[in-house]
């Protein structure tokens, strides 16, 4: 059982892009988002959080990110940040500094109010039905 069929990397990567409403953190996104994520990581330090809160734009100017990435951070547009190479565990440093929980921050990506999102979770969460594959519509 230790021998499984060898994975075709191109098919593997194509499948990762076939999931509705999802940005899998691939090596391509990791490269694109390297500085965006490292900026977010810097907020793990209290001293950096103070500087960030004092002047967000000035703080971002010190990081070699794209202007799109800077603008999306300032706007807290988390879906756009995912498209620009952000990863949720790094972006969590930004929303935690804002005082938001995972549930509150995650809800902003769904088009639902936080209350409606929390109610959905309490009622069993979002069904995978129809959300498994863009191509297949399943």
């Amino acid at each position, binding site marked *: 059982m230790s021998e499984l069929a060898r994975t075709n990397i191109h098919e593997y990567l194509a499948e990762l892009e076939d999931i509705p409403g*999802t940005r899998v953190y691939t090596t391509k996104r990791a490269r694109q988002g390297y500085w965006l994520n490292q900026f977010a990581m810097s907020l793990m330090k209290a001293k950096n959080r103070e500087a960030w809160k004092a002047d967000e734009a000035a703080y971002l100017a010190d990081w070699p990110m794209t202007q799109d990435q800077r603008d999306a951070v300032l706007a807290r547009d988390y879906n756009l940040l995912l498209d620009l190479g952000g990863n*949720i565990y790094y972006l*969590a440093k930004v929303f935690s500094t804002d005082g938001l929980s995972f549930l509150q921050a995650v809800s902003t990506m769904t088009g639902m109010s936080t209350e409606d999102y929390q109610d959905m979770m*309490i009622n069993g969460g979002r069904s995978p039905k129809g*959300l498994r594959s863009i191509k297949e519509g399943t």
Partner: protein
Amino acid sequence: MARITVGIGTSHVPAIGAAIDLGKTKDPYWKPVFDGYEWTKTWIENEKPDVIVLVYNDHATAFDMDIIPTFAIACSDSFKPADEGWGPRKVPDIHNHADLAWHIAQSCILDEFDMTIVNNIDLDHGLTVPLSLMFGQPEEWPCKVIPIAVNVVTYPPPSGNRCYGLGEAIARAVESFDEDLNVQIWGTGGMSHQLQGPRAGLINPEWDQKFLDNMTANPALLRAIPHIEYLRETGSEGIEMVMWLIMRGALGDNIKELHRHYHVPASNTAVGHIVLEKTS
């Protein structure tokens, strides 16, 4: 001789740690989450493990984008709970069985599982929340802990098959360690959850329960599950369940399910928990 006796699977949701730390475990929202761990808390007091090999993932805490080890084993004598941005959890320091950790590292590498050896790292909720769930709020953790960190953040994570094989290699390593030790292995993370994008909040209880069933019924099926199935069926963060397969792989063929718990939700996540005893 050291021996692995038990495998435990559990979610490691950070909000669970916060609920414990803030004394909210009896709140109506949280009570059903914690009730399912009461059996294990009582049972483990009698089991008295000497060492836990605790498989978890770091969530951009000790490792950032500069170093991304697929499998890392932490070998220093002790560790602090990490400051994840709002101050470290007020839980005891974690003490390693460093001799066994180094032994597992060298044994696994000779067994062709090329572990990254790390020493001075802080441990985040992925490791401390499971300890709190099983042991409550003690002054000191009652046993030694060997942290094994798996990359499940940057794709590709290791395959389920590779994780299962690493579990088998860890079992061989433990069995060749010449000290009489009762060792448990814990696999943490999961179950279904997605923390990103418009599809966030995805939960799939049928799939999750089948995964728990197959821990005993058909582990060969579990090791063959491809990444894309975790993503499609259990959400983008459900991939953490490959870490449960390291636990399962370390237990061998003959096991018995002692306890199971499943609840939706804790924050964005389906909580799953299983206790598996090695029977031969």
